[in-house]
């Protein structure tokens, strides 16, 4: 089976501005793929190119095996970054309309709309005009509208933005439901905790270029390991160990040291060495780097410099 999405050195130029810089990407079918990056990194531009709303300046894109998303548009679902609905349309007819634009029959689309609204707690609002709904509900309606036709490949641009924590969980549930139904999900976000919880793999881009592409664990392995050690004893022998990259003492708390280990080093070796050398530790804290740390580590300087278009 081919991948759901293949990008091969895709670039997009707006005049002199390089929005996307020869980006290559493969998304296997059935996976949940995170698309991470700071503001202005080129996420939305890339998603639009995938959908063929805009054309790339160079490079090739293959979606669900087709050279253009237009040929398989009925099998794709899309939620754009900025959310909006027809104000005067009813919730159900909004969902049914977008589903029918994806090739669903009118009756089937209507039934499906009511089903979905019921399933995600909006059953009572099916007949309300969208302008009468709260912002969170409107966003839910839009998400449902983008997946009503049971797409094989769902592209969600910032699906969590503007949702309260409860609805963020509902959104995660929607993504998991889609995934367990066999759909491929690609979503962009800059809130790392969601990505960490639901992504199989993710790609991190900044300034239009890919910085990392892989699983969360692979990303963590790339990060220098940090270990916090607190001890009253002499730690200088530990500092000489070959897998220790650098040590820093916390100025506010004497005796608390942050050890940065070389990549691939196992923090356990540090604990073993302390034991061997008879150093009494009052604290040993090997914290896993979060996706947040990875993000800041990888794109931190660039994100600050990046000019937001």
């Amino acid at each position: 089976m081919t991948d759901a999405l293949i990008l091969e050195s895709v670039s997009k130029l707006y005049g002199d501005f390089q929005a996307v810089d020869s980006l290559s990407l493969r998304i296997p079918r059935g996976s949940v793929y995170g698309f991470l990056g700071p503001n202005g990194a080129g996420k939305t531009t890339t998603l639009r190119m995938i959908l063929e709303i805009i054309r790339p300046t160079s490079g090739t894109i293959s979606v669900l095996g087709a050279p253009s998303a237009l040929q398989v548009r009925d099998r794709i679902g899309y939620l754009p970054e900025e959310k909006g609905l027809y104000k005067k349309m009813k919730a159900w007819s909004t969902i049914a309309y977008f589903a029918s634009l994806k090739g669903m029959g009118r009756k089937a689309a209507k039934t499906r709309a009511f089903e979905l609204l019921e399933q995600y707690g909006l059953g009572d609002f099916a007949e309300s005009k969208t302008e009468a709904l709260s912002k969170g509900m409107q966003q839910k309606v839009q998400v449902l509208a983008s997946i009503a036709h049971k797409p094989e490949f769902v592209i969600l641009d910032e699906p969590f933005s503007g949702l309260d924590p409860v609805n963020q969980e509902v959104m995660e549930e929607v993504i998991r439901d889609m995934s367990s139904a066999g759909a491929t999900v690609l979503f962009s976000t800059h809130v790392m905790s969601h990505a960490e919880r639901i992504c199989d793999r993710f790609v991190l881009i900044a300034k239009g270029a890919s910085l990392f592409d892989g699983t969360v664990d692979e990303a963590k392995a790339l990060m220098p390991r940090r270990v916090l050690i607190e001890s009253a004893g002499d730690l200088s022998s530990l500092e000489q160990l070959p897998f220790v990259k650098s040590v820093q003492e916390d100025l506010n708390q004497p005796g608390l040291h942050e050890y940065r280990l070389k990549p691939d080093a196992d923090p356990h070796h540090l604990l073993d060495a302390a034991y061997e050398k008879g150093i009494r530790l009052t604290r040993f804290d090997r914290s896993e780097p979060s996706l947040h740390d990875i993000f800041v580590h990888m794109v931190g300087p660039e994100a600050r410099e990046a000019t937001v278009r």
Partner: protein
Amino acid sequence: MRYAYLIAVREYLENVKTKGFWIGILLFPVILLASIKVTRFLEEEATPTRNFVLADFTGELEAVIDQGLNRSHQWRVFSAASDYVSKHTRKEFARKQIEEMDLEKIPSSVIDAMKSMRQEEDARFEGFLNSSDPKAWIRMMADSGVLVEDRPDFESPRPKFSRIPTPDWLDMNQSFKEVRALLKERLDESNPSDEKDLFAAVVIPDGILTPSKSNLLQLMGARPKEVEYWSINQADFDLRDSIRRALDRELQRRLYATEGLDEELIKNIQSDRVPVVSLDPKKKEGEEEVSLADTIRQYVPIGFVYLLWISLMSVVQMLLNNTVEEKSNRIVEVLLSSVTAGELMAGKLFGIACVGFTMLFAWIAALLGILHWHAGPEAEFVTKLLDIIENSGLLWIFLAYFLMAYLLYSGIFLAIGSVCSTIKDAQNFMGPVMIIMMVPLLTMMFIPKDPHGTLATVLSWIPIYTPFVMLNRAAANPPLFDIVGTTILGFVSVVVVIWLAGKVFRTAILRTGQAPRLVELWRWLKG
């Protein structure tokens, strides 16, 4: 195609389902009807009888003025009586009367005759007024069974103006200056809506009508004294004109007398007319006379041009609003992930076009409905008018030009909508477009008078004006070259405009933020 159709269906339903749309449709004929009824009502019922005081220093003109006012009043009674009769005529009579009336046979000169009837100076009309008694006429019509049985009694309209006898506070032994100062003060305190208050005062200086036999010619235009008309409402000329006419008439009468002329003879001479007949060389032998129907045909296109303009404006406005809404809501992104920009545009154009045709048909249906419900002789007459319009093929010409104008302007408005992120932005673009669109409205009254003149011909060949001006000229049989040429040019422009609009639409519809500068627009058009 299926997607364009789905989009068209949504556009259509969303616009047609709104209350505002139907209110707008119903409002149009209602306002049309109301504007006729209400002005008539205001004129006849709602204005109170206005009082005025006469300060006549000659001491001999009271009767003259009363007579003059009575004549104006008589005219109003007569037209009220004629309305009364036509309102209460048995339907079968009215219908028969109108059915027998063949507009194709009635010469267009009746319009002139009707016009001169309106002018009360017309000496013929004076004779008619003096000899007719509206009440007797109504009785006669009733006796001959023309009128329906259960009808209210005829009520003469109240006089519009009433002269109050010289009040106590006005001492005519005072000087002219003192009297006018007194009147000025009184009038200044009057309330225009109070029936008891003074509405006007007329001050006639002594010797105003004394003619000097020696130099009659010099006298004209150089009368040393003036009649003063003081009024708290300077917009209502009726009283002033009635008084002026009465005094003029009296002056003439006296002059005739001094010169030893026979007044009756002069009146008869004045009311004689040379008959003039309008003939059209294009018509068949023996039927060349220009009929009322011909004249109506000539002017009906003005109504159509106006209708075209109004319907076009409301429809393209809808298109603009929808496009800006989709753009500002970013709905367009979802749409474009499902359909191509071309399909979206085609769907919108087609959907809104259907809204436009629905509106036109609803207007016509509502108009006919109201006329039917308000069935009277007018309805029959309108049916007659519609027959003329239908037989002349103007309706089809109108629909064809509506389509051309719609496609042309909708392309322009769609492009404007796609470059603007907010309605406010769009309004900035709208200003100049509106001014350009006003031209056919400003010229529509002149074009039937000179349908093949330079103005008409030049405007016909400017594609954005073609539908309006050619429709305007349609009844005057414009040269075939103009018809075919402008139509081809028009539809070529439609294709070009839609094609260019498509380019702008595709580029602009996803752009956010500021509207593009002209240079950018030009680049998109080229690229």
